[in-house]
Each structure stands twice: as structure tokens, then as C-alpha cells.
């Protein structure tokens, strides 16, 4: 793609457009006004990922906003993929924030429904849910490509955005998961990051359905990876995290090691093995590594998966 044909001109877009196997990471903002936490996380990820998701009040817990954190990450060498949930903002705020984010240099956006308020630290909050994630994708696409606000009014300068979405290949109804991705593609999504994958056979089955619909030709698919830090985390994800599919043999494999460093090492090994296996699947354009509060593991995993050095872009 020439610079003129790029939609946003972000590093993420350039790498994916070039067909290079992409690596994205994740950076969760802190539950305080301490911006140095983002600086430290960005330093850890810099050079090891092509861009990093900046979560938006993840698990419905209040943190530094994804826009502010994204700007801090970018000031520290890590391109941001700013997350935007439908839970906390109505269409006015979503449009205002994206204009502001782009004005501050953010180029990638991830459109999400958002975890429900009941999971977070303000369960009494009123959920907004003015529009849903599919409508959010379309709204941003229309802002970018038609220079139009959701109401139809025109704007002078459009937000040049690389638009992402999430999909859970392990959610139900299973066969509808591909259709939902198709809806997101039709709405205007440029890339998708999947829920973390532990059940590779099921993911392969989902990818087969995705390819049957030709969706891998129309959207860049980043397979989600979460390195497991210990057996407790594996069991927690298996039993308590909505939409997760953690096979028992994964839990057993981690639990088979001594607590602490040996379990962590097994978790990293597993992540590396999975990245290599996912990279072989037709239509997988990269991996999205969500090392939840375990960012220091990312450089090692990326290196051992043979994904260094990360490409430079013009």
C-alpha cells in the first residue's frame, strides 16, 4: 500500500498491510493518577510489540483513561491501540473522544462492548450502551471515510483511524461467531483481535469457518494469547472469566510444575508453543499478547517465539 491508500498510516496498519506477522501487546492503565506506571510498561514493551492495546476501564474498574494512557505510551515509544467500550460513553462522547484522541496522535482504535458494570468496582453505575460495538465500528468508519458524524452532519477534518474489533471464537452460539465477525467486517473493521486462545482445535475450527466466508481476506486477524503465570490463574480463567475456554489439560500442565518460577516458565513455554502453532494457521496475521499484569514476560516470549527483531516502518 502506498501512503495515500493507507487508512490511518499507523505502524500497525503498515505492518499488517505489508503482510508481516504482527505482534501486539497490552498495557493496562493503573487505578490511580500515577502516569509513570504507563511509562514503565511502555518501556518494557518498546521494541517487542508493534503496538499495544490501552485498555478502557477493563473489567469495569476505573483507571486512567485509555486516551490519556495511550498518549503517554506513544510518548514512550509504543504505538497505542486505544480501546473504546460502549459501556461508559454515549455516541456524543465516543465521537468527541475519538476526535480528541486523533488530534493527540492516536491512530488505532479498538471498538468493544465492554465488560458489564457488575464485574467491576462500581456495580451501581448506570451502563450507557447507547450504541453497540458493531454500530461503533460503523460510526467511526463513516467519520473516517465519509467525513460524517453519526447524525449525518459533515466535518472538515476526518479522524484517520485504523479500526479494530474483538471477537470471541469460544463464545456461543458458536456458528454465529463467524457471522458476527462478518457483521463487523461489513461495518468497517480493519483488524480483529480474538479472545485469548487456549483451545487450539476449537480455534482452528473457527478459522476454517472464517476462511469459508472469505473473511481472512477482508480483515487482519490477530490471535489472542495470554501467558499463564500460575495454576491459580489458569483455574480462575477456566472457572470464572466470562467467555474463556481453558481446557483441563492446560490447567494440569501448569499445575504439574512447582509453584512460582517453574510454573511461570511453563506458562511462557506454553505461550511460545501456541504462538508458533497459531502462526501456521492460514489467515492468522499476527498475535495479540495479553500478559495481564505480567508485562515483563512479553519480551522473553516474543524472543523465544522467533519474532524479533520487530520490523521498522517508514
Amino acid at each position, binding site marked *: 500500500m502506498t501512503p495515500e491508500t493507507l487508512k490511518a498510516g499507523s505502524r500497525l496498519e503498515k505492518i499488517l498491510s505489508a503482510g508481516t506477522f504482527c505482534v501486539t501487546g497490552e498495557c493496562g492503565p493503573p487505578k490511580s493518577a500515577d502516569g509513570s506506571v504507563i511509562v514503565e510498561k511502555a518501556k518494557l514493551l518498546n521494541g517487542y510489540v508493534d503496538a499495544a492495546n490501552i485498555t478502557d476501564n477493563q473489567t469495569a474498574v476505573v483507571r486512567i483513561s485509555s486516551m490519556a494512557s495511550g498518549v503517554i505510551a506513544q510518548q514512550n515509544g509504543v504505538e497505542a491501540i486505544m480501546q473504546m467500550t*460502549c459501556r461508559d460513553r454515549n455516541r456524543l462522547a465516543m465521537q468527541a473522544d475519538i476526535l480528541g484522541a486523533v488530534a493527540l496522535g492516536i491512530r488505532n482504535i479498538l471498538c468493544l462492548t465492554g465488560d*458489564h458494570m457488575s*464485574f467491576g468496582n462500581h456495580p451501581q453505575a448506570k451502563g450507557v*450502551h447507547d450504541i*453497540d460495538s458493531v454500530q461503533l465500528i460503523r460510526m467511526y468508519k463513516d467519520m473516517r471515510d465519509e467525513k460524517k458524524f453519526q447524525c449525518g452532519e459533515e466535518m472538515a477534518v476526518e479522524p484517520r483511524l485504523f479500526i479494530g474489533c474483538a471477537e470471541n471464537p469460544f463464545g456461543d452460539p458458536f456458528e*454465529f461467531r463467524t457471522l*458476527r465477525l462478518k457483521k463487523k467486517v461489513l*461495518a468497517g473493521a480493519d483488524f480483529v483481535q480474538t479472545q485469548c486462545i487456549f483451545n487450539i482445535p476449537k480455534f482452528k475450527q473457527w478459522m476454517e469457518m472464517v476462511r469459508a466466508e472469505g473473511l481472512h481476506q477482508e480483515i487482519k486477524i490477530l490471535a489472542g494469547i495470554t501467558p499463564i503465570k500460575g495454576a491459580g490463574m489458569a483455574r480462575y480463567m477456566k472457572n470464572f472469566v*466470562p*467467555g474463556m475456554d481453558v481446557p483441563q489439560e492446560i490447567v494440569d500442565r501448569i499445575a504439574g510444575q512447582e509453584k512460582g518460577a517453574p510454573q511461570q516458565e511453563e506458562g511462557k513455554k506454553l505461550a511460545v508453543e501456541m504462538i508458533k502453532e497459531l502462526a501456521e494457521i492460514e489467515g492468522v496475521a499476527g498475535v495479540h499478547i495479553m500478559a495481564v499484569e505480567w508485562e515483563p514476560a512479553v519480551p522473553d516470549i516474543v524472543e523465544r517465539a522467533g519474532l524479533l527483531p520487530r520490523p521498522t516502518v517508514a
Partner: protein
Amino acid sequence: MITAERKPFEEILGLLEGKEKVLVAGCDTCVAVCLTGGEKEAEILAAELSIKAKEDGRPLDVDHISAIRQCEWEYLDAIAEKVEQYPVVISMACGIGIQSMAEKFTDKLVLPAVNTNMLGMPQEHAVWYERCAACGDCVLGDTGGICPVVRCSKSLMNGPCGGSHDGKCEVTGPNKEEIDCAWQLIHDKLYAQGREDLLLRYTPPKDWSKSSSGGPRKMVKEEAKPV
């Protein structure tokens, strides 16, 4: 129907603190059907208040009455004589009935004895489920008769989120009870009807100005207005 739950007795006592002459007003329509605020429940609350006052050694003149519908003027006229005898009325009707009482009997202190909670239906005996958000723009024709606005925890309009698992929502009820995933139900129904193409159709952002977001709503039936 409109459903409501009685407020905790302690809260009701708090509302009535220092009051010596109180009328408990039931309503024999929705809140009677949901076993919360009909004539029988009004009589029970009046008795509870009377016993409590005796226990506490406080004077309390309390009685009860019930209107066929507290939300219509003509039925309030029917209970006006009794209401006039009391400075304080604690209403067991839904929020509409309570406001009608307050609007009709302007010199009375009208208090709520219930929390109005939803437009629901009794799916099984003595169990009600929310079914309608009164959003002002019904989509049930495209969703197999299952409302995504109120039955999906996130009011999604374009299919289930990633938290749908085995037909259940990621959100649970107040007592951790499971909630059906509305989009699983919609999905299954549309497939059963051979209308699954609707699942792939993009539904644009909803016009919430037709709901309470547009400000307090008003409905006028011109053809039914007296000439």
C-alpha cells in the same frame, strides 16, 4: 404488567416517623396481581404498622383502603372521602399511582411504600421477569419476539457479545442466578423460523429520543379526544 416490590419495613417506618394518622392506600390492578400492593397487602401493612406502634407505645391511627386503579382520576374520586380524613397517605401503587395520588390530593403527604421495578410477566408462579423497556421503538418483529433492549444486559442490537456461554449471559442476577442470553434465544428462534438472514442484517443505532432520553413522554390520541 407493571411490577413492584414492597420497601423494607424499616424504610417504611422511617418514612412514617412522627406521623400519627396514616392511610395505607392499595391499588387493585398491577400491584395486586404481583402480590405487592393490592387491598390485601394494604390491610397487612396497616396491621403491621398498628402492631409496631403498639409495641413502641406510640399513638397511631392507621387504616387502609384500595382503589381499583390509583392511576386514574375517576377511581381516586371513589376513595376521596376516606383519603380526606388522613393527612398522610402511604401508597402501595406503582410510581404512576403514587404520583396520581400526590397530584390529586394536593394537601396530603403522599409517600411510597413500594419500589416500582419493571414491566414484567409472571413466567412461573410468583416469579416475574422483565420483558419490556418501554423504549418507544419496538423491534420485536425482527428479533423473534424477544427484546434485546431489556433482555440483553448490554442492550446489544447486533448479536451477542463474547460473554454468551451455553445459552447464558455473563451477567448474573442479584442472587447469582443465571440469566438467559437474549441473543442466544433470538438466534435460536430466528433459525427455527427460517429467518436467520435477519441475524446478519446491520441494525443501526437506536433512536433513544423515543425513550426517556427524549425527556418525559406524552401520548395523545387525537381521534379519541372529545370534540
